[in-house]
C-alpha cells in the first residue's frame, strides 16, 4: 500500500475519477498549469487537457454557477475554491441554487457538483485564509458535507463525492495537506461510506468528537489523558451533513461523557447540534454536560495569535477535566 500525503491522495482521487468517467471535469482558479495554490491538482491538466481541467476566470459564483449548468447536462464538475474565506461570492449559487434544484424540480433534476474547499487555520496565513465556515453550509438542506482527516479518506471521500448524485462539499484541512499515511486505492475498507463516523481510538471514560484538522489533536489529547488514568474514545466525524449520530450516541452510552472539538466558532456551530442531539438521545447516559471546544465569537485572529484561538491538546484536556469534574 503506498504512503502519500493528504494532498497527493486527493490528487490521486481526482485523477482516478477523471480517468474513470469522461463526464468528470475540474474547474477552479489556477488549478491547471500551476496545479492549484496547494498543488492538489498538479499534473492533471497535462494528463487530461484544458477542457477537463479548466483554469476558470477568477469568479467563484461563475465557477459554481456554470458548474450547475454543466451538471444539468450530465457532467460532474469538481470545483476548487481557492480558500475557505473566498467561497462567499459563490454562497448564493451554492445555497439558493445548487442545494435546492433537486427539491424544486420535484426530484427531476440532479446537480452532482463537488466543491472542494481548503479550510481551517494553523498555517500562519493572512486574513480570510484560515476560516472554518462549514456550519453555514451544513445548515442548508440539499448539500452533503464531508471532511477527511487522513490520506486514505482523502482519496475515497474525493471519489465518493464525485460519484454522488447530490452536491457534495469536501472541506479539506489545509494544514494536514502534508500529513502522510497509507492509501489503498483499490479497497476503501471502512472508508467506503463517507457519511459514517469512525471510532479512531477506543476508550471507556469519555468521548471526544473531532473532524478534519483536529482529529490528530484529539488523538494526541486522548493519549495524554492516559497519564491521568483516563481512557478516552475518539471519533472522527468525517461527515458534517449528514452527521452520524448513531455512532456518537453508541459511544456516549458507553463512556457517559462527550467533548466536541472544532476550529469553527462554538456559537451556532456543529458542536451545539451534536450536544443537542446527544442530550435528546442519550440523556440518561450522560454523566456531565456535553462540552464544546472551538473558536471564539470573533473573526479569525491574525496569525501571530492564532495559537491562542485554535483548539489544541491542552484545550481539549481542559474540557475533559471539566467533564470529569461532574
Amino acid at each position, binding site marked *: 500500500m503506498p504512503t502519500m500525503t493528504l494532498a497527493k491522495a486527493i490528487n490521486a482521487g481526482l485523477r482516478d475519477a477523471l480517468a474513470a468517467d469522461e463526464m468528470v471535469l475540474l474547474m477552479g482558479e489556477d488549478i491547471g498549469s500551476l496545479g492549484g495554490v496547494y498543488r492538489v491538482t498538479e499534473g492533471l491538466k497535462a494528463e487530461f487537457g484544458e477542457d477537463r481541467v479548466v483554469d476558470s476566470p477568477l469568479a467563484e*459564483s461563475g465557477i459554481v454557477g456554470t458548474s450547475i449548468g454543466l451538471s*444539468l447536462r450530465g457532467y460532474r464538475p469538481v470545483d476548487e475554491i481557492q480558500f475557505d474565506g473566498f467561497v462567499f461570492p459563490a454562497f448564493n449559487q451554492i445555497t439558493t441554487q445548487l442545494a435546492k434544484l433537486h*427539491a424544486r*424540480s420535484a426530484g*427531476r433534476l440532479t446537480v452532482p457538483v463537488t466543491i472542494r474547499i481548503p479550510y481551517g487555520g494553523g498555517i500562519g496565513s493572512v486574513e480570510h485564509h484560515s476560516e472554518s465556515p462549514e456550519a453555514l453550509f451544513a445548515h442548508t438542506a440539499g448539500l452533503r458535507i464531508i471532511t477527511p482527516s487522513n490520506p486514505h479518506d482523502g482519496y475515497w471521500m474525493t471519489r465518493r463525492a464525485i460519484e454522488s448524485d447530490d452536491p457534495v462539499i469536501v472541506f479539506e484541512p489545509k494544514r494536514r495537506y502534508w500529513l502522510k499515511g497509507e492509501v489503498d486505492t483499490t479497497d476503501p475498507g471502512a472508508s467506503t461510506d463517507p457519511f459514517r463516523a469512525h471510532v479512531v481510538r477506543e476508550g471507556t471514560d469519555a468521548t471526544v468528537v473531532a473532524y478534519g484538522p483536529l482529529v490528530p489533536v484529539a488523538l494526541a489529547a486522548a493519549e495524554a489523558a492516559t497519564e491521568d488514568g483516563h481512557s478516552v474514545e475518539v471519533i472522527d466525524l468525517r461527515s458534517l451533513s449528514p452527521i*452520524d449520530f448513531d455512532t456518537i450516541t453508541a459511544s456516549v452510552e458507553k463512556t457517559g461523557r462527550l467533548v466536541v472539538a472544532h476550529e469553527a466558532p462554538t456559537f451556532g456551530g456543529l458542536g451545539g447540534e451534536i450536544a443537542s442531539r446527544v442530550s435528546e438521545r442519550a440523556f440518561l447516559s450522560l454523566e456531565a454536560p456535553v462540552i464544546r471546544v472551538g473558536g471564539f465569537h470573533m473573526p479569525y485572529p491574525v496569525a501571530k495569535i492564532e495559537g491562542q484561538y485554535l483548539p489544541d491538546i491542552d484545550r481539549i484536556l481542559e474540557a475533559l477535566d471539566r467533564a470529569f469534574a461532574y
Partner: protein
Amino acid sequence: MAGHLPTTEFDDIPDELLDELESLSHERTEGHVNMVQLLDEEGRFHNGSHFSEHARSLSGEELRGLYREMAMIRRFDVEATALQRQGQLALWVPMRGQEAAQIGSGRATQPQDYIFPTYREHGVALTRGVELGELLRIFRGVSNGGWDPTETNFHLYTLVLAAQVPHAVGYAMALQRDAARAAAGGRDAGEPGAVVAYFGDGASSEGDVHESMVFAASFKAPVVFFCQNNQWAISVPAQVQSRIPLHNRAKGYGFPGLRVDGNDVLAVRAVTEWALERARSGKGPVLIEAYTYRQGAHTTADDPTKYRLSEEEQEWLAKDPVTRFEKFLRAEGHADDAFFADVAAEGDALAAKSRKDVLAFEPPNLAEAMGNVYAEWHPLVAEELAWHLEYESGFKDAEEANTSEGGH
C-alpha cells in the same frame, strides 16, 4: 477531445467583432440609439436591412402563428392576473407588453436549444410547448416548478435574480463538450444547439450577469444573452441600472451586442435567429437587448402608479406589439376578421382550461417534498420524515374518531 473546443487564446480580433456589429444596418433610432426594427409602430414593414430578408422568408402560416401565440399568451396573462385577484393565486407576474420579445425570441429557438428563463417568460414557455397551466403551480403554492425541463428544454423559473445566467453559460459549455466528445469518438453529434439566457434590465446589475459574460466570452460558449429591457425593475427605472444602453456592455466583454425593438416580433425573431445560429456555429455569445415595456405591474403585489406617469404608459401603449402586428397582417393580407375571431376564441378556451387546471391542482404533500431534498438516501431526512408521518397519523386517528362519533 483536446483541440475541439475553442481555446481561450484570442483567435478573433475584437475589432472584427465590432465591425460585424457595425455592419448590421439599423433602421430606427430610439433616443439616439440604433435599434433593429422591421415593423414600425403602424405595422409598416421596412425592407433593406440585414434582417429584413429573413423576416420576408417567413410564410403566411408562420406569420399568423406568431400573432396567434402573442394573442394567446396575452389572454392567458389576463386570466392569471384575474385568478390572483380572485384569491386563487398568491401572486402573478404579468408579462403584458412583452409578447413580441418573448414569442419572437422563443420561436427563434430550435428544439435542441436550451432555455433558461427568469420568472416572467410565460410567452417563451408557450413556444417551447410547456403546458401553460403548469406555470401556475408556482403561483398557486403547490410546486416550485411544475414542469419537466428535460421534456421541453425550458428550465424551471428562477426567482433569485440572474442566478440562472451562469447556469445557462455552463449548459452552453456542456454543449461544447458534448460536440467535442462526439467528434473524438467518431459519433454524430446531432444538430448543434445553443442556449438562451433570459434576464431583465434590473438583473443586468447583478454580479452573476457579469461573471456569466466573462465566462461565455473566455470559453466562446454558445449562449445568447437575451435581456428584456422593460424599462422598470419594480419601481426603479432602467437608467439607474445603466448609464449607457445595456447592449453596449457586450463590447467590454468582447462579443457583439445589439438593441432590437422588443415590440416588433419580426425583428426580435430575426435577430435572435441570427444570434443563435452564430452561437451554434461556434462564434460565441451575443447580447440582445430587447427594448420593450412592462405595461402592467412587476407583480400583482405592485402599484405602478406610485412610480411612473400614465403619460409614459400611454406612449408605450401606442407601440403595443400585438396591435402592431395585427395591423401588419391585415395590411399585407395575411389574416382576416375570421382569423382574429378564431384566435380570440382559442385564447378564451386556453384561459378557461388554465382556470380549470388551477382549481384542480392536487394539494402538495410535505412528505413527498421531504423525499425530494436529496437524490440519495439521507438519514436525517429519513428520521424527520418518519417522525412527521407518525405525528400526522395521530391527527388522522383523532379525525377518524371524530367522524365515527359524529355518526351517532
